[in-house]
């Protein structure tokens, strides 16, 4: 079984400042890792994913995340945030072997609030 922990429920930050949203996971099997963003009153949009290969993954809107297997972490970063980045961010994990139960386990989300 897998589980995901997002360590911060809310992160306030000023515009143009850097931000890191933390995500830790646990799993008894190899996993895929994802970050999704949910803007107010909208569905989820995939920001980036890690399947294999380079541990630094670049996504849309200037976000990137680094997979750290030894620390079982997949933290999301952006060097300079904009007001438009205000949203809720979800980390998710899925089993590497999908079989017939390919589903994602989501963290509880981190609300990023960017202030002018």
């Amino acid at each position, binding site marked *: 079984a897998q589980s995901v922990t997002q360590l911060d429920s809310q992160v306030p930050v000023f515009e143009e400042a850097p931000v890191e949203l933390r995500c830790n996971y646990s799993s008894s099997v190899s996993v895929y890792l994802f970050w*999704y963003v949910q803007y107010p009153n909208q*569905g989820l949009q995939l920001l980036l994913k890690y399947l294999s290969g380079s541990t630094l993954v670049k996504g849309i809107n200037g976000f990137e995340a680094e997979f750290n297997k030894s620390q079982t972490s997949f933290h999301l970063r952006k060097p300079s945030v904009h007001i438009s980045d205000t949203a809720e961010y979800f980390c998710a994990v899925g089993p590497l072997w999908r079989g*017939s139960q*390919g*589903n994602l386990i*989501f963290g*509880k989300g981190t609300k990023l609030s960017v202030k002018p």
Partner: protein
Amino acid sequence: SAVISQKPSRDICQRGTSLTIQCQVDSQVTMMFWYRQQPGQSLTLIATANQGSEATYESGFVIDKFPISRPNLTFSTLTVSNMSPEDSSIYLCSVEDDRYEQYFGPGTRLTVT
């Protein structure tokens, strides 16, 4: 990528009634998923719906309460039956492509009074 639409986008229903939510995808997909997002909470998988077979429900969810249809590779419905205020949530459908990416619909915001 896949484009997913859901109907209705929102609804207010009385307790004891049922609501059927539709999910339409712009391409053929094998795996479709239904999630629930309760207020202030994360997403919880309700069931996996594959075309041509019975839906597979997660622990805590049963077919009598959340019947699902999957008549073809582009469409699915989720019914929330005999609703109570605890069913007030956002219900989202998603599809998975062959790169293990899931695409989500905009969600159906349900309020039960």
